């Protein structure tokens, strides 16, 4: 019997797993995909929101502000990219000034530090390329950028190092509570635990409703994004938000923590929980709305587009806590935006809930810190020389666009919860993230994966079973 089963290895599940591993207990994470960070956590804005947007008194507001304050420190402890660039909520000509003021007031109530309403002159000083039609803005200096992949991966890796077990390709199909314990059926096996934590993202209602009599309902909201070449990454410095609507924070334009430019998301309610496809209308909307924030958004410099689903629960707020009908079942559901910003605080809070129910001594050998894969692209010449000296594979460039070497890719595969797919490598070390979108490097990365994992190239996938990149060998089907 496991002490705690966490369902879902997204940023929330990973943050909870890490916090739970501070105490002496067994924790098992069940994930239906083949890697961590395969759902909502991989397809979002990568923004650490200041916390002005959520309604005061909501869980969203509380965990957003708290998580946002934790993020910078955490980025140092767990070695993932974070950059405080500040956000600006733009008020276009003709828009209602009260909306901006209401946001400002909301932010103050939520306890967001440093908020300021700034006029056109100050705005243009801060952000010369902002659209000329913008009159005023709410300046949020605490707004920041984070790599959502590496945040999730870092949390999960550190949890794994501290004894948390992860099972991938293991979809939970049923949960029963019997004799004070949970029977969890997943991937054709049965697991049992004393506590279950539901961090299943857009499937959290499905998981919840398996065992809880009082039902919840998630209807995903799709967000489509366009990612631009790094050559235009410095067109703006701040994250530029348009005024929020009922469906979300509106289309933003932002530099990413890796130096690209990004615009999105749309907000479309969808019924299919796998509808991560982009649409012609959606992409057009992103470019059109994005250009309301920035003078001449460089549409020709788009290198890829993608869509993610936000797990919108009908109540509109995060649901975090033990279910009142099913003791030991802890929901962490409805985690849509600002879930990424909130995740570190949610992790601490949920672990606290479990600790209250189930007191355990501290894990004696808890490893607090984690060191990520060294990046040749970001290293100075001296560091590069040292890395190559330690391992010559760091001189073998595999991804030209992002300057990623064989050494980094091998490290990404060999480390705890290492990459086993092309996407897994891409999210860990950025091979294939650049302007050629893996055209040059994917055959090479596939060969490295094949060699390091001891499997044939035909077995290498983009993102788990069913996404094999090859279909047999030449001439054998004539």
């Amino acid at each position: 019997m496991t002490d705690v089963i966490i369902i879902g290895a997204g940023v929330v599940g990973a943050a909870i797993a890490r916090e739970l591993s501070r105490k002496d207990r067994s924790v098992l994470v069940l994930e239906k995909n083949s890697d961590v960070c395969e759902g909502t956590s991989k397809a979002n804005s990568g923004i650490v929101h200041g916390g002005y947007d959520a309604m005061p008194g909501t869980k969203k507001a509380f965990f957003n502000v708290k998580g946002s304050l934790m993020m910078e420190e955490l980025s140092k402890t767990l070695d993932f990219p974070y950059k405080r660039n500040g956000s600006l909520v733009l008020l276009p000509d003709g828009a209602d000034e009260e909306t901006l003021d209401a946001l400002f007031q909301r932010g103050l109530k939520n306890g967001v530090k440093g908020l300021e309403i700034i006029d056109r002159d100050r705005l243009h000083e801060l952000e010369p390329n902002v659209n000329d039609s913008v009159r005023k803005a709410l300046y949020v200096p605490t707004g920041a950028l984070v790599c959502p992949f590496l945040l999730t991966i870092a949390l999960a890796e550190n949890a794994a190092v501290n004894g948390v077990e992860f099972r991938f390709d293991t979809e939970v199909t049923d949960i029963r509570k019997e004799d004070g314990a949970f029977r969890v059926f997943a991937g054709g096996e049965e697991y049992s635990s004393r506590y279950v934590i539901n961090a299943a993202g857009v499937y959290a209602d499905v998981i919840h409703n398996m065992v809880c009599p009082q039902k919840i309902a998630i209807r995903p909201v799709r967000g489509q994004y366009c990612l631009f070449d790094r050559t235009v990454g410095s067109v703006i410095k701040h994250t530029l938000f348009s005024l929020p609507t009922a469906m979300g924070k509106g289309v933003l334009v932002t530099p990413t923590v890796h130096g690209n430019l990004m615009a999105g998301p749309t907000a479309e309610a969808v019924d299919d929980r796998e509808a991560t496809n982009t649409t012609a209308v959606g992409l057009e909307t992103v470019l059109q709305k994005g250009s309301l924030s920035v003078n001449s958004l460089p549409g020709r410099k788009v290198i890829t587009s993608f869509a993610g689903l936000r797990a919108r629960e009908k109540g509109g707020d995060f649901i975090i806590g033990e279910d009142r009908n099913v003791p030991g079942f802890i929901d962490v559901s409805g985690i849509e935006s600002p879930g990424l910003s909130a995740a570190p605080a949610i992790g601490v809070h949920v672990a606290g809930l479990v600790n209250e129910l189930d007191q355990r001594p501290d894990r004696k050998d808890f490893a607090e810190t984690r060191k990520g894969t060294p990046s040749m692209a970001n290293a100075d010449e001296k560091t590069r020389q040292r890395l190559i000296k330690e391992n010559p594979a760091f001189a073998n460039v595999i991804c030209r666009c992002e300057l990623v070497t064989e050494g980094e890719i091998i490290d990404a595969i060999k480390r705890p919860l290492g990459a086993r797919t092309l996407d897994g490598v891409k999210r860990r070390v950025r091979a294939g993230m650049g302007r050629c979108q893996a055209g040059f490097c994917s055959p090479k990365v596939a060969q490295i994966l094949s060699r390091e994992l001891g499997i044939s190239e035909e077995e290498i996938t983009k993102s788990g079973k069913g996404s094999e990149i090859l279909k047999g060998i030449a001439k054998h089907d004539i």
Partner: protein
Amino acid sequence: MTYDVDIAVIGGGPAGLAAADSAKKAGVKNILILERDFRLGGILNQCIHNGFGLHTFKEELTGPEYADRYIKKIREDGVDYMLDTMVTDLKLNDDGSKTVTAMNRTEGIIKVNAKAVILSMGCRERARGSMNTPGFRGAGIYSAGTAQLFVNINGKMPGRQVVIVGSGDIGLIMARRMTLEGAKVKMVVEIMPHSGGLKRNIVQCLQDFGIPLRLSHTVTDIRGGKRVEGVVVSRVDDDLRPVEGSEEYVECDTVLYSVGLIPENEITLKMGAKLDERTNAPLVGDDLQIDSSGVFACGNVLHVHDIVDHVTEEAVNAGENAASFVLYGKVSKGAKGLVESAEKNVYVPGVDEDKMTCVRCPNGCLLSVEKGTDGTLKVTGNLCPRGEAYAVSEFTAPMRTLTTTVRVKNGTTKALPVKTSADIPKEKLLECIRALTDVEVAAPKRTGDIIVKNIADTGSDIIATGSVDNV
């Protein structure tokens, strides 16, 4: 490690090789080519089809054979080269010299101080992402060049049921390659009302195999989950916008993009040079020099050439000009520079269908054949006698060169490029492929080695068109 050279050449593909050769022949002593791959030749290594060299060598070669000619020249010249070496930086020093920073496994970080630099990094393909094609992002979406590498270098199939987006030459070539290796190419869609590829490729890569070319069509949605399951193909109007109601679902497991090439100028940017916003190419003078800096650019890094012969011609100019810069401190006025392709001979639907396109050279003459009452064939439209011979042969018994690969044991690559030593009847193509299915050769092999004698009783041998070394 630090090296001092006269000329550093960045990239050992067709442009770099020809530039180094011409600079050497112009009297420059100390030339170093820096190549990121494990061998020289660049993209030609994976272009195993024929049609190269008609201008330069007056004969038809495959890509690896064309590369081999220049690699031999380089070796005879005594030009130095470093393989598996990636250039990461290029700086202009105050004294006018240049420092190239590179790295490789054996030497770590390398500094090359050069009097002149030749940029010959080539280009990369535009990917699906830059087209903003909506839909899912499962496995099975590749650029045509990536598929070409999988098939021609690794001997693997990236898919079995294929839709190709874009009718540029790489897309057309891959339609034939995928077909010959066992895939079903459902169609090639081209958003423009005309193909971007050479006529000879329309004939030999599509028409030979009955592959439909859908002009004024594009893919408007990619469906499937983990793997592509199909695409929606739509007709486009005069403004290239999809026409509502024209959608057609085409089942496939693979989408290949052949939608244009972009010069690869990361290194050029490092020296502070400006790029043309539209083409992404460096701005050079008439002598191919960037801003009198002693840095020259040639080949596809400068503009995308239709045929390699033009790359060579331009690179020869760059090599000579760089040599002048090194030897005399300047390039004389009137030096030769850019080599623009003549207007491309593209396929025009409705006009070209009744006529035959001569494929003996890139001219692509449109031939008409009439059978006289006495049974003799009268050919018109040809610019040279080869056209007449071709038309007669096409009319009576069409012949083709087969280019493909065989598997390699213990080699530095898993596939060896091969071709038929002489043309074979068109209808024998697939039979020859079948006969090669289980052929596996042991490395090493050299260009020209005979792999199979008298393949499928055609009287033609299968010969190696490239080399493979032992691991």
